[in-house]
């Protein structure tokens, strides 16, 4: 199953003009726990999916109270300047969604 199909919410957005943040939220506590325990969501996985260096990833955090996890990484080009193609960073979630879990 793809992460895109397992999640209730999977989205990307700027968190400030210099980073993109990916949120994955579940509505089923069991599924959230399963994904968390699988241990798949690592810097290595994310760096591979987004063709970025591991140290460009500033956060990978699970938050049990919200049944979700968050990944934040540095943008290669800051929001809204020359050569950016996604000013709000709102359509960068697909590579993560393609992840098989």
């Amino acid at each position: 199953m793809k992460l895109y199909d397992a999640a209730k919410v999977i989205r990307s957005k700027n968190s400030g003009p210099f980073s993109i943040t990916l949120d994955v939220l579940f509505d089923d506590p069991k599924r959230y726990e399963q994904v968390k325990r699988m241990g798949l969501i690592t810097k290595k996985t994310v760096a591979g999916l987004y063709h970025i260096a591991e140290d460009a990833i500033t956060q990978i955090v699970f938050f049990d109270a919200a049944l979700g996890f968050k990944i934040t990484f540095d943008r290669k080009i800051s929001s809204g300047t020359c050569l950016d193609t996604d000013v709000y960073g709102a359509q960068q979630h697909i590579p993560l969604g393609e992840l098989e879990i």
Partner: protein
Amino acid sequence: MKQEIRLLAPCGILGYGYPKESFLNGMAMKPDAIVVDAGSTDAGPHKLGAGVAIVSRQACKKDLELMITEGAKAKIPVIVGSAGGSGGRVHVEWTMRIVREILTEHGLEAMRTAVIWGDIPKEVVAERLKEGKVTPLGNAVKPLTEERLAETNSIVAQMGHEPVVEALKAGYQLIICGRAYDPAPFAAVAIWQGLPAAYGYHAGKILECAALCAVPGTTKDCMLGTITQDGFRITPLSPSRKCTSLSVAAHTFYEKDHPYILHGPGTVLDLENCRFAEMGDGSVWVTGSRISSTDPYCIKLEGARRAAYRTFVIAGARDPLFIRSVEEIEKLAEEQVRAYYQEIPEEDYRIHFINYGINGVMGDLEPNRELPHEVGIVFEVLAKDQELADAVCATLRSTLLHYGYEGRKSTAGNLAFPFAPSDVSFGPVYEFSVYHLMEAADGCELFPIEDMTMAEGREDHEAV
């Protein structure tokens, strides 16, 4: 000291609009203040760099009019954060012109009005840069050099609650803030009334997006926050929405780099051990928010510089032979243009193609390499001045339109332009050249409060 206060949050961004019924439901609950955030950096550096607002004048006036008149009637403070979107001087002045119009039209000239400026003089930044008190906010931010500072149009900083508390203490009923940390104007009311900063800031973080944390969520509807010594409650003001413990807990994910640690001016908010309880009436009760002060006190600076001038073209392509080789053809067209303009230094302009239908959104990250039956092409020239961008783009357009690629059958033209003229002379492109933390003596040092009360005899604005 009050045991609780109620904050009415009309909408997520001033000018996004809100239903009058929801707002009046909120007023019926006797709020202690009406607070709205007007700011965002979401739309990129252009608004700050060019000094333009993010919403229309009409929309801003429509939203403000009801807030100001109802606030005056109920004798409660009305506070706007990050006026005009970016919260710089021109954005605040734009907002103040609308405010004065409303006050005049409703005979409210005596309403005690203050502006809290959020502009930071470049000399202050330059001085603290030399003292090592200015640091980039993250690895993706370029270091601030004297040259880049000189090229930056204007600099704002996000204020915390402190100057807003001062303005409330001084008795101002209408407070227009320059750039502010989104939750700060909400937190200020709580702190002014002696309630915990942690609950003020956490409630503010939710209320600055108004009904976005409700189900269904929207920034275009009102929300009420009730802050007490022991926690706070979030209540939707439209019967069609409710909050759930999950929807409120998940809200802190939104647009933040971390789900439960939030950095603000001089503070860090820690929401890891919060509890979210549904009250059975569509509201949620939150406890366990924690806040700590930082030493030194740092403020976040934002500044934009002009990076280039842009001219672009939107076109479509339908021919399968063209689509099959589109990236190669674009490369060859660029080479031909560069050869034609060989007297112009290469670094004076850049050419950029975006191929929608192939990888326009994701670029190299696009996992799907299937070719579509038609492609939308946006091509742009980014140059050091507008004239050069226009000239190179015109040559690029005619070159790509008629490029004789290998095996071509459609020899009359490669592109379908939806518009005439096809070339859009866009103007300047900005970049965030300043996105840094700077040390400040305290939360009030760099945010002066200015009396803007309109009533007779107050034409000279005195700083307080």
